């Protein structure tokens, strides 16, 4: 593979425009494996984005701006992301192993668009949008719209994902991410959940909820019906069960060597129970569930 290494965004966009067939990568944690395992034929030309300065993390006007070149390690260690987009920090912390988190980037996780991509449910539940940039200019698109299917995105062959924008969590909001894998590191998720909630003032329920699930459908799944069910001032067992049921109905998982579809569907619902109960407990200060 011939490799082009742009040093700035302008140069990268020019190369992208000139060689739309070239493969893009930054950390290489997906690409190298795909080539080695022959899931992808080694492309003749690659554009390496690791030297393009896209690793900013800024907070302005209640909006987080995260460069897509940020590594998972950088994101999970960022205090501003931990407090203002907690679910994303948690998701990045759950990826692979320390070595992979040092190499892999947020942009790469988006570009690969795996149904099991750990940052994707977090980004969707947090309401994130992307800046897609080409020589012709910029466009903004929600992550949910961007993800079209396994390995399929709305990125045009002339564009580069340059930034992720996330509306900052307010003090009356919480977010969460949880991944279930077969072991505690280096495991592809069997199912994952992420959510963002706005607390009802009594702290017993929510005024708004967004939910997103990974590994249970071809792409990230938002279950709006479940989110609506949970948007009530007081959450009791009946509400929880009803929301979990909606999640199980909405999932379209596959059976593979890691787990069966039925188990994945159950777990998606149960992870919702676990996470909402934990949230309510943390608010109450108790820990019995």
């Amino acid at each position, binding site marked *: 593979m011939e490799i082009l290494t742009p040093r700035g965004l302008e140069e990268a966009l020019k190369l992208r425009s000139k060689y739309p067939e070239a493969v893009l990568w930054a950390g290489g944690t997906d690409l190298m494996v795909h080539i080695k*395992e022959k899931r992808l034929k080694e492309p003749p030309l690659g554009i390496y984005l690791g030297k393009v300065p896209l690793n900013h993390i800024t907070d302005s006007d209640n909006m987080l701006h995260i460069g897509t070149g940020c590594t998972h390690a950088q994101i999970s260690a960022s205090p501003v992301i931990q407090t203002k987009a907690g679910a994303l920090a948690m998701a990045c912390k759950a990826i692979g192993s320390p070595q992979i988190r040092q190499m892999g980037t947020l942009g790469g996780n988006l570009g690969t668009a795996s149904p099991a991509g750990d940052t994707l449910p977090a980004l969707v539940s947090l309401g994130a949008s992307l800046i897609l940039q080409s020589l012709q200019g910029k466009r903004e698109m929600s992550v949910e719209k961007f993800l079209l299917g396994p390995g399929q995105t709305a990125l045009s062959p002339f564009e580069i994902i340059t930034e992720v924008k996330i509306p900052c969590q307010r003090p009356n909001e919480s977010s969460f991410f949880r991944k279930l894998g077969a*072991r*505690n*590191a280096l*495991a592809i998720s*069997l199912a994952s959940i992420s959510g963002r909630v706005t607390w009802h003032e009594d702290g017993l329920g929510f005024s708004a909820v967004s939910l997103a699930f990974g590994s249970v459908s071809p792409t990230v799944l938002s279950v709006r019906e479940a989110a609506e069910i949970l948007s009530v001032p007081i959450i009791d067992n009946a509400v929880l069960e009803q929301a979990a049921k909606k999640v199980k109905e909405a999932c379209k998982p596959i059976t593979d*060597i890691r787990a069966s579809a*039925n*188990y994945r569907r159950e777990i998606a619902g149960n992870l919702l129970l*676990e996470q909402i109960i934990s949230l309510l407990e943390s608010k109450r200060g108790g820990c019995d569930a």
Partner: protein
Amino acid sequence: MPEYHWVGRPIPRLDAREKVTGTLKYNNDLEFPNMLFGKAVRSPYPHALIKDIDVGKAEKLKGVVKVLTYKDIPGLNGYGILIQDQPVLAEDKVRFIGEPVALVLAESQALALEGAKQVDVKYEVLPVVDDVWAAIYDLPAKVHQEGNILLHTHIKNGNPEEVWSRAAAVVENVYKTSRQLHGYLETEAGVGLVENGNITVYCGSHYPHRDLIQIARVLDLPVEKIRVNSRAVGGGFGGKDEVTLQIQLALAAWKTGCPVKIVHTREESILTSLKRHPMIVKMKTAVDGQGMLLANKVEIYADTGAYASLGGPVINLAVEHACGAYRVPNAEIDGYCVYTNNGVSGAMRGFGVNQVTLAMETQMDLLAQKVGLDRLKIRKRNALQTGDITPLGNKAIGAMGTLAALEVAENCPEWQEAETWKQQSLHLRKKRGVGVAASIQGVGLGKGLPDDAKAEIEYLADGKFRVAVGTPEVGQGNITALSQIAAEALGCDIHKIILINGDTGLAPDSGSSTASRSIYAAGNAIIDAAKKMKELLKENVKPQDYPIMAKGYFHFPVAEKGIEGAFGLPHCIFSSMVHLAMVEVDTLTGTVEVKKIVAVPDAGRVINLQGLESQCEGGALMGLGYALLENVIMQDGRMLTPNLSTYLMPSALDVPEMRTIPSESVPEPTGPFGAKGIGEAVCVPVTAAITNAIFDAIGRPVTQIPATPERIYRLLHPDLE
């Protein structure tokens, strides 16, 4: 206990520095001038006839020196420790995916790989035998001409059928175990070379002296012309007991006259290496009202894969250990070792005992529950002791430390305070359980197999002793422990010992580093040589006498009478092992977290506590992986877990707190300073201790491993489709 100077001291590993700093040269690090590289051409089919092998195109490639096929083999085209049914290079038929058909030798790795792609093999595909039941009953095809049952062992002592009706409780279950990968860090690798008409093979091995015989048979050469050096092994766990690359390396070097290196990629290693036998174990067990075992009827079906290797002995060891660490007056045990096209199964740490221990130890918990006895007490009540008649009908003559080890486990705070700990779960959805399991493990190869050991000690002019034994260091720490034994026996400082092992050119045949025997057998041979050396040194030594040589010999204790119809049985020396496991089961997901493992090894007298602790920790993790994660999944003879991202072993984050409490109160009278082998037992009962802890937590027994989150979830929700 007697006082010793070197024995019992936690000496840091003598080979630690070179391994930690990377100065030790492993086989892949070896370089020789004009070295060629070998790459195997492998069968893409699990079962097929070979119609034609065309190497013409490959041999014409620039940089390809030679392509070897079965036609290039001077002697027997077959290997196998007991039965030589596995071709070095397949001739007329392939029996598993990955089986080597040709070996391309080229000037670089890349050229060898390119050459391998150019070898054209024509196959006629045959029906696949991928299941032990089908192999026996449906017979879709014969893997070998003689049929698909490699071995059936039947043992009957007493009559279980007369017992069921009068028993207080009878428990009957079917257990299924997975295909476990050894997962050694160093893949199969080595270099073969010819020097002055003799062959030297550098390759990791558990028994280089036996490799000589296997190589000599294939090359049709006298063993004296061959040397195998296994001085740097990056882990074995039994997987390097059968030859891996030794014959290919010797053949390639012999045919080309050049040094030849072969290194398996991780994927090649996972595809072609031996695996732990998946077994189906049917067990029906009875106790009386006091919890005394009355009878056990066992049927074991083992998937041995395409070739014999040590499948027969593995199944016989499973038969011998099917009743666990206990007295059972009426036992009927049938073991079937069955050929399939599912790769090749062979020796792996525990050697068949792991699978039956999972079954028997689960039965013990179920029986305890049925008669209302404490789980530890029922084990103590039935523990086999020295002088008892074993379930096979022979007399147990070695030291039996099970009862002592169970008492150590019973008295430790983890067991004493188990109920309190279980109540302290932070979440109602997380259920805690504590499990116990015990096992015994035969030390040595067993009746009728060559088990004796030789050792040589030379007193050198500089005042040091060169101590040579054949048993290689495969990571278990025997360089350190054997040096301690030598220093103790000679009465010298340990730094005066130069321990040489694993090289047939430099050390005598001390038997294998397998079957938990290297410390026991080689250690005893060293002690014998040391006694003779001390006698020699009593005389006035003159400079011209150096070096002074003493040879030691150890005759492995063997039962007077063998078990009829069961080659290799019985064993005489047994080490016991007890594990406690503390787990937390998340009932919302089925995930099991092991919080703590307590290991109580009955190693007799401990030579090196630090070494024993390392063995116990590594062993517990191997047993933990076996309990919860590890499974080579085969479908239609194809491997669905071809790499370490699909075959999951425990990661650093899956390691629980671990504690080792040696039970030293029952030294083995025939052992070196009272020691016995422990290298296998450390990974055996831990699996059942974990599954029994899950049983304790959720109230349902685990009968199939790995106990994945989904399997546990389904135990909790049997109605889930």
